[in-house]
């Protein structure tokens, strides 16, 4: 357990050292709010059911959790290239503990970033959640962080080098974002895309955040679309399955070692 704590503590320390990363993670949702928010708000201006910027708030928080968790779990790839991963592998700890430490570190960072952004964003769009809403929002953020952090470790254990990272951005992060309900309700999508959306952990996280923050608009169709227990259960299943898969992938010979231990010839 001390080892897991050590891995989490290092992730946190590294994050604080990287000032650019801190600023980017806090600034990113506001860039979306201003640029995407302005455009979409104008398109939807005719319908006065909800201010688009308010509608975006849960999705933006989900986005912060996603970037925070995925990117920090993907730091496993840089750890492998820098050799730091080998320090963890030669330590007397199970591979599962490395996966768990990485995923928990990602959860912690994702949650911390989402809380900071929520503190700035919600007053800005004049969204005042109830106490129950805030607690549900915290649950949503932590569960999403775990599910996405575990997914990040799975990706990191599967991709060979940092160069493949652009592929991850294009084919994982952006589709996940657009098919999460962060920018428009999932119910407007066709059946095929809706099916894909429900295979997306972020969709459940954003849905839970809508339950937490947009309950006042549930009557006009902008609240959560799925039952709260289903959202929670889906996120828990993603988190547990992801952690198990991540531990297995890291445990394989070559799972973490293929670049670190390739024979130099």
């Amino acid at each position: 357990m001390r080892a897991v704590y050590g891995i989490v503590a290092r992730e946190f320390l590294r994050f604080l050292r990287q000032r650019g990363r801190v600023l980017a993670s806090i600034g990113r949702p506001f860039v979306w709010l201003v640029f995407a928010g302005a455009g979409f708000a104008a398109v939807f201006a005719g319908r006065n059911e909800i201010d688009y910027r308010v509608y975006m708030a849960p999705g933006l928080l989900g986005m912060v959790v996603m970037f925070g968790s995925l990117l920090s779990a993907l730091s496993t790839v840089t750890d492998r290239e820098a050799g730091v991963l080998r320090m963890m592998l030669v330590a007397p700890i199970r591979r599962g503990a490395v996966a768990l430490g990485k995923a928990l570190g990602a959860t912690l960072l994702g949650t911390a970033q989402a809380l900071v952004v929520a503190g700035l964003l919600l007053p800005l769009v004049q969204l005042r959640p109830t106490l129950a809403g805030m607690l549900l929002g915290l649950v949503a953020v932590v569960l999403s962080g775990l599910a996405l952090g575990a997914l990040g470790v799975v990706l990191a254990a599967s991709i060979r080098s940092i160069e493949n990272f652009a592929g991850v951005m294009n084919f994982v992060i952006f589709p996940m974002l657009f098919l999460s309900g962060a920018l428009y309700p999932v119910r407007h999508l066709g059946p095929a895309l809706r099916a894909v959306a429900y295979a997306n952990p972020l969709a459940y996280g954003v849905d839970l955040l809508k339950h937490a923050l947009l309950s006042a608009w549930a009557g006009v169709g902008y609240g959560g679309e799925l039952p709260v227990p289903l959202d929670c259960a889906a996120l828990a299943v993603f988190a547990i399955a992801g952690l198990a898969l991540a531990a297995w992938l890291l445990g394989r010979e070559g799972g973490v070692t293929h670049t670190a231990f390739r024979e130099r010839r």
Partner: protein
Amino acid sequence: MTAAAILARGLGKDFGALRALDRLDLEVGDGEFFGLLGPNGAGKTTTVHLLATLLAPSRGTARVAGHDVAHEGLAVRRSIGLVFQDTTLDRDLTVAENLRFAARLWSLPGRVARPRIDALLRQFELLERRDDPVRTLSGGMRRAADIARGILHEPRILFLDEPTAGLDPRARRSLWDRIRGLRAASGVTVLLTTHYVEEAEPCDRVAVLDHGRLVALGTPADLKRGAGVGSLEEVFLAHTGRPLAEAEGG
């Protein structure tokens, strides 16, 4: 005969069609200073990674500190320290942060780790740089910090994989002084891999590897006597028909 720190029987590893290590029989005594000498690609690093449970053997068995490498990985890793060929330190963290991170990975409680970290930093002349990021350190200092990281948990057996690679002669000399001091103070078993003949000279015994096979084993003096030559360089030549320097990079 002292108890064996390392015992390998028919140990081998293939990478696809490539036979990196054929069938190695090896016994390293407790407290011994043992050298694995051979050109790059001879199977030295593969041997170390097999013994450290980072690779699974393709054939044969090995016991390290009495534990089976295939089935008792955690127990093996608890008994060993390993300094890799390339640094494993986090360049963005400070020297002290790296050592604290390692202490947690090895589950050392803070009250045990703190005085040990201080003592190691003093011993390795890193006290003044303890709060500097590792990326600002010279190669020699980084290596010293790597070794401090490797012995922080006071392992019974220490693997040093090409520890002097990329160091200038002065840093190299000071590294050897440290390893000598360490052995005198703690009696730790050291298994060293190197392709520099002169670094194998002070070893108690040397195993010469070439193309994944053990070609000679003995004390440096015995090896030279057996081959009827005056240096380990010539021992390698006598056993393989090639000079060590030329075999390099092959």
